[in-house]
């Protein structure tokens, strides 16, 4: 296996982008990444595009071919593959791109992710997102996607004493971080009271405990480490790329107060990188709901089980805390265009490791981690990156 580096990143603004089409978004993210890497189009050997449900959001499948056309690369006839794993589609696309380069099969690989979610009405978007859960045995009976995370929140609260205020403190921190990110969907800072006063979606989760519906795209360019030097002097190496799975349904799992797939992906990633949780300088985690970030920082080993809520409340995960979490604003504030999310997380970590994160820059960041989860935990992907 060859060592792999990220040599370019790019992403669109995230938000309700009424005037932007799916193609526009894919094109913009890809162009930014190609320009950032300083590569020529004809150097690209393959593309992997993460996307959850373009078929239902915009009535368009066959995204691999669409991306080639958008990029103007059809005359190269390169492989271009759409990757789907619900909200982890972007992370899984990264994993596939990593494998393609590490194996020696391809040299320069584009990994993208995109979702255009606001062409359907809100209720329909919710219904499409429910397809990440088990349609026959969860959604059919009236369980919504927020409802599944709400049941995990209830279980966590009952078992460990996690409080609604601690859940809210995740949203408050991530909105603060998002206010420092020009590409974030929400740049408005909020208070604990704002979260607790927002309408209930699925008890105990309020509207402001939930990530929004978002349009956006993100891309990265991967290359073997030994030729990465040709393109950039700020090389970010992928120390680990690990993927794990579990049952599609929440009720089928061994645990309701953690995401076992995320725990196992993290264990594999730490082993692959020969690192421990204490070696990580910052992380982007999958905070689709506030409870998800609390479980994430426990599954990743940053805090003991049951301590995640308290740690967040105490500011230990803030930008100037001991382990900054979601400096980008996370899914909660930056936005969550599902297929793009896993790739956007890599964008943020690469920016931080290169020292290009502006006002939200973490001091002396050398090693960063991303944590991307599909559905209620049926798929999880963890990447560890290091600047060299």
């Amino acid at each position, binding site marked *: 296996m060859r060592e792999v580096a990220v040599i370019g990143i790019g992403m669109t603004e995230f938000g309700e982008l009424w005037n932007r089409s799916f193609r526009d978004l894919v094109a913009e993210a890809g162009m930014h990444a190609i320009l950032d890497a300083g590569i020529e189009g004809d150097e690209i050997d393959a593309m992997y595009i993460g996307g959850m449900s373009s078929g239902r959001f915009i009535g368009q499948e066959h995204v691999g071919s669409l991306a080639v056309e958008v990029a103007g690369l059809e005359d190269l006839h390169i492989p271009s593959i759409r990757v789907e794993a619900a909200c982890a589609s972007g992370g899984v696309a990264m994993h596939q791109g990593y494998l393609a380069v590490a194996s020696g099969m391809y040299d320069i690989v584009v990994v993208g992710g995109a979702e255009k979610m606001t062409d359907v009405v809100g*209720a329909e978007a919710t219904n499409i997102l429910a397809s990440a859960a088990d349609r026959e045995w969860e*959604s059919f*009976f*009236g369980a919504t996607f*927020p409802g599944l995370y*709400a*049941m995990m929140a209830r279980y966590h609260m009952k078992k460990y004493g996690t409080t609604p205020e601690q859940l809210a403190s995740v949203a408050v921190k991530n909105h603060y971080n998002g206010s420092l990110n020009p590409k974030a969907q929400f740049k408005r800072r909020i208070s604990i009271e704002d979260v607790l006063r927002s309408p209930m*979606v699925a008890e105990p989760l309020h509207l402001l405990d939930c990530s929004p519906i978002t349009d956006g795209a993100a891309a990265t360019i991967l290359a073997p480490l030994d030729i990465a030097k040709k393109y950039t002097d700020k090389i970010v190496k992928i120390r680990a790329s690990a993927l794990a799975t579990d049952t599609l*349904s929440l009720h089928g799992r061994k645990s*309701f107060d953690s995401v076992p797939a995320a725990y196992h992906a993290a264990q594999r990633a730490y082993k692959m990188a020969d690192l421990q949780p204490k070696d990580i300088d910052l992380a982007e985690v999958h905070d689709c709901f506030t409870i998800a970030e609390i479980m994430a920082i426990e599954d990743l080993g940053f805090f003991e089980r049951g301590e995640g809520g308290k740690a967040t409340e105490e500011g230990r995960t803030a930008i100037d805390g001991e382990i900054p979490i979601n400096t980008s604003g996370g899914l909660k504030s930056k936005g969550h265009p599902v297929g793009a999310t896993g790739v956007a997380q890599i964008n943020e970590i690469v920016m931080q490791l290169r020292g290009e994160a502006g006002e939200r820059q973490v001091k002396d960041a050398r090693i960063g981690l991303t944590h991307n989860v599909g559905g209620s935990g049926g798929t999880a992907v963890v990447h560890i990156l290091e600047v060299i």
Partner: protein
Amino acid sequence: MMGVARYWREIPVRYNLIGKKCGVCGKVYFPPRNICPTCRRKSIGKMEDYKLSGKGIVETYTIIHTPPPEFDGKAPYAVAIIKMEEGCHLTAQIVDCPLDEIHVGMKVEACLRRIQEDGKRGAIYYGYKFKKAED
């Protein structure tokens, strides 16, 4: 809208809580599974139909305030993960009980109810919901 067969084929299971019992280790699965995740290949061809007692306890629950389109007008309603007597877990609504009386550890039993319909003229789907156990 889905073809009627999509949910019709699950009717026997949904009406009668028919799960599967592994003929090797004896573990009961609901929703039904084709392979026992403990015994794996040894369980092939040995997964037998098994009717659940319908009794269980609430392991965790939520009150849904923002429902999906098929449940428009039904909110707020309660959804729970229920641990069945046989050891398996399933997801279902809790009914016939004030929402604020639902709690973790509550004893419940299955009943057959209307779950949802495909629009005003479409098929009506029935299945299990749970109510407070009589005792």
